């Protein structure tokens, strides 16, 4: 499956979802002009990736662990709902037995970013979420 690569801008994050390198990372600032236009392709990519994982599991058994890393400087409230959707999708994969986890990075001076991640994690059923101070 092709990697999803989105270059960052002053108002949208960098996205690297690369199954070959086993690298999954979202970083930067998120307040896109059209939030839905930015996040829907990410959610669609994840849906496809989930299908691939099902197929692989069926054929070859459980695949290697996958860590999705979130390194936000800032996100607005409209983005928050889409980030929640991304996490929900990952949570669904974890609930289906895939070895998936999330890492939430935050600047040690930015307690609000840590708390935002904690609020997200309270809504997840299975996805393990680790908080990492930078």
């Amino acid at each position, binding site marked *: 499956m092709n990697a999803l690569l989105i270059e960052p801008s002053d*108002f949208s994050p960098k996205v690297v979802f690369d199954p070959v390198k086993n690298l999954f990372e979202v970083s930067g600032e998120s307040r896109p002009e059209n939030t*839905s236009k930015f996040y829907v392709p990410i959610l669609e990519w994840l849906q496809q990736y989930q299908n691939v994982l099902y197929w692989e599991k069926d054929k070859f058994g459980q695949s290697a662990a996958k860590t999705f890393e979130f390194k936000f400087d*800032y996100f607005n409230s409209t983005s*928050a*709902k*889409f980030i*929640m959707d991304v996490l929900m999708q990952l949570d669904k994969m974890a609930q289906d037995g895939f070895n998936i986890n999330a890492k939430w990075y935050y600047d040690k*001076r930015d*307690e*609000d970013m840590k708390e935002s991640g904690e609020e997200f994690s309270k809504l997840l059923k299975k996805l393990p979420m680790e908080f990492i101070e930078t």
Partner: protein
Amino acid sequence: MSKEISEALEIHQFMNERNVIMSFMGELTHQVTTSLLKNLKEDMNAANVDVVTQKRLYGIIVECLDNISKHWIALDIEKVLGRASPPIFMLSRVNNYYIILTGNHIPNEQIDLLVKKIELVNSLDKKGLQDFYRQTLAKESPLERDNAGLGIIDIALKSGNKLEYDFRPVTKDVSFYVIQARISL
């Protein structure tokens, strides 16, 4: 001195006396917002504002400007009033507070709901706001059009102070809505 120059000087003096750091009146496109935010970041870095306050201030301003844009898109005010009347954004520093103030026209039919939302967030403490934020996050679909709830909660959380607001009737259908958030320094 022309009347216009004299008035401009009065406006400048008025703003200066109120410690206005930044103000903008006009159509707040995403591009304008981005440019204002860039200036703001630079100003705050230069003023050695601590990171938490910087980020909270930044977050509140983004939400306020996003709200203005939404109302601006939804309401063709020039058509309603027969003249241009763009929104306003103002950032000032008074005593131990940063004050963020925005003003824009909204349809009168939206006022009741907006007042309910603001009064609700004003009635909650930090824990209550976090719970409400999480409930709203879980409930709302990102594709729903009305997503004003989360923005107001976010502003209240970052502000740490009660939000102040007013509605000034302009026509029988439209009012000018002003909302003010404060951050303690």
